[in-house]
């Protein structure tokens, strides 16, 4: 692209806010009542994390993997790509995240939720918001429930919930699972802020909170005395 420095975020925005939110209305209408199932899956994830069982970690990874693959296929590939050709290039990344969750979740100690750490409350906060807070934003902004973004149906709450889960997890391969949810939150927040939509703040806030929690965790670990 020549004279790239002359381009602004608005130059890459191909659609209007009205079309964007109508897209969620149509998507929700086409999948209802699957939302009940995906929200139920989200609650199961919370319960499994709280129980700290070893087998639970595999189920959490499996549920998240299925939802990433489903959202990538149903929303990005089949729906969003009709108004944003770039979404067709992003959809495979959702499938990759799903496969990574399946693989890492199936490894011994790939993901574990058996220890509590300083980032816990941030993880629960982000996860709780993704499940219960994000769907409320549409009616709170006078768009009605029809265009709500629901975990497991829409990409933002799915990515934010995954960030929350990863904050609550431990595992050597955890950093491999982070880039795609982080990049999606960033991309979505930039798209929404370019449209002038206040709904840009949740993905930005989730990223900021996650970054702060991880930084704090790393600092605490380095500052703690080595085991005897």
């Amino acid at each position, binding site marked *: 692209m*020549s*004279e790239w420095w*002359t381009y602004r975020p*608005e*130059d890459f*925005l*191909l*659609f*209007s806010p*009205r*079309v964007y939110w*109508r*897209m969620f209305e*149509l998507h929700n209408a086409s999948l209802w009542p699957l939302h009940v199932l995906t929200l139920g899956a989200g609650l199961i994830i919370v319960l499994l994390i709280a129980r700290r069982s070893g087998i639970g970690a595999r189920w959490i990874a499996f549920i998240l993997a299925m939802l990433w693959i489903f959202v990538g296929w149903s929303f990005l590939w089949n*729906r969003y790509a*009709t*108004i*944003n*050709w770039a979404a067709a290039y992003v959809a495979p990344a959702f499938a990759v995240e799903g496969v990574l969750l399946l693989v890492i979740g199936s490894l011994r100690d790939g993901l574990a939720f058996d220890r509590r750490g300083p980032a816990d409350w941030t993880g629960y906060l982000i996860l709780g918001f993704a499940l219960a807070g994000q769907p409320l934003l549409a009616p709170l902004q006078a768009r009605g429930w029809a265009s709500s973004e629901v975990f497991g149906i829409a990409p933002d709450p799915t990515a934010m919930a995954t960030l929350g889960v990863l904050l609550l997890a431990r595992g050597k391969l955890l950093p491999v699972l982070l880039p795609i949810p982080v990049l999606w939150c960033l991309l979505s927040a930039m798209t929404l802020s370019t449209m002038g939509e206040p709904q840009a703040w949740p993905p930005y806030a989730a990223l900021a909170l996650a970054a702060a929690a991880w930084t704090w965790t790393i600092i605490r670990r380095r500052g703690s005395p080595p085991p005897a």
Partner: protein
Amino acid sequence: MRTTRRTFVQASLAATAAATLLPISLRAQQAPPARRPIPSTHEEIPIVGLGTWITFNVGDDPVLRDECAGVMAAFFEAGGRMIDSSPMYGSSQPVIGYGLQKLGRPSALFSAEKVWTSSGAAGPAQIEQSRRFWGVPKFDLVQVHNLLTWKAHLPMLFQMKAAGAVRYVGITTSEGRRHDLLEQIMRNEPIDFVQFSYNVVDREAEARLLPLASERGIAVIVNRPFRQGALTDRLKREPLPEWAREFGVSSWAQLILKFILAHPAVTVAIPATTRVDHVRENLSAAAGPMPDPAMRERIAAHVKAL
């Protein structure tokens, strides 16, 4: 949801609700838009067309597709001809095709498309895909979008023109980018059309591109006449000057559109809109008296001072 003729008509009526409040007799009295000749053939074309950037990218949404078809219906009804799109504009091409089919493929259509791919070899296939989206036998005009891979695409388009597969060839840029290269192409290549941004506040094209287009006999399509709505959004807070009424304008959009259309080198301006009343308003700016050079300066100075 399958869109039947009935649901289409209902949606179109809903989309045109504001405009249909006007008595039919009043709309019927709207003067036809002025025309200007395309220099390379002297074929005359209405001086206001229809852009589709963002506005027609509505995906598979049946309600919004019908609204776009309603805008196209009003556009043709008011005497418009040129519709401009690009493969870059998301679903705009199939949405145009949907509208054309609903409207019974209006014979007035002047189809203006673009080729937008960094691969020279992929150009013909992309143009063919675009043609299928529109559902037209061939395009009237195909332009190289934003000068992308122009060295490969222009010879291919000239070959298509020689073979009768396209009537006119052009090249585009926007927002003042790469005017030097555009000028070089205008001087050296036998293009029929050139497209760039020009409006009451972005007047860089007046210095070299517009005079060169006149000199070389190249038709000029003006994009972003309202700066993608930002200009009209800013101006709507200000009162329309009384002296503007002498041109029969009733809105800022019409005044700043007349500013563009009054330039003798401009052939067509292509404002984009999602509203039927706006498309009628735009077409009506193409009729009636136009500001002279002194008045154009007055309009520009007034807008700049606001």
